[in-house]
């Protein structure tokens, strides 16, 4: 099993670092550039939601991202000090939010759903949360 983790403060300034982390650790293991980009986008969207909505862009709040590649499955864990938000409560189509709010929104969650096979959210003792996303990759993947 391949494993890598990154600790970061809850600020959007860290989004490029998160992208770099994902691409650096998975580039040699995921041969398809389209798949690697999709995973990078899904991870960034998950982290951006936690940074902006769950932690109110407070750089003092520390999150931990963990990538685990086991067999042909990539597991992505995000350990967040804030209570979980209900990712399943978002409308399934991003355009629906436009009608409600008169501005585009909901794209990030929509992208995660399109890219990732499975997402679970768990509330931990003390009120923090763990987001777990899983994606089945092709047989070419090197774990």
């Amino acid at each position: 099993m391949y494993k890598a983790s990154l600790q970061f403060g809850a600020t959007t300034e860290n989004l490029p670092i998160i992208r770099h982390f994902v691409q650096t650790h998975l580039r040699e293991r995921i041969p398809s550039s389209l798949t690697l980009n999709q995973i990078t986008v899904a991870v960034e969207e998950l982290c951006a939601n936690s940074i902006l909505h769950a932690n109110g862009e407070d750089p003092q709040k520390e999150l931990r991202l963990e990538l685990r590649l086991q067999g042909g499955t990539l597991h992505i864990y995000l350990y967040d000090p804030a209570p979980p938000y209900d990712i399943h409560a978002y409308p399934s189509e991003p355009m629906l939010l436009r009608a409600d709010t008169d501005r585009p929104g909901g794209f990030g969650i929509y992208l995660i759903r399109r890219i990732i096979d499975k997402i679970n959210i768990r509330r931990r003792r003390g009120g923090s949360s763990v987001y777990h996303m899983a994606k089945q990759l092709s047989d070419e993947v090197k774990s």
Partner: protein
Amino acid sequence: MQVEVLPDTTETHLKLGIIGELDAISAPKLYENLNRFLQQYSSARQITLNCRGLTYLSSAGAGILLMSIDNLTPRGITLELVEVQPEVYNILDLLGLTKLMPVNHV
């Protein structure tokens, strides 16, 4: 992320080149730049955004593109994306934006 006016821009056809990554930090800057250039080229009826140098797009960037279409269409201005990299095109396609605006990929 940088946006620049391309040399073959005309009075009615504004051609812009975008270089870098469009994420939650840089997306608002794209919107500001588009508005600034539109003030400068107020007769423009068509905007072409050359995306050869755009290497990454997140949902925030896609949201800004959609907001731009919503603002430009009622003013009779069309927005098109050309030379979009495959990875960026794939994200636009997943979001359905390739059906809302002309998008030409590399």
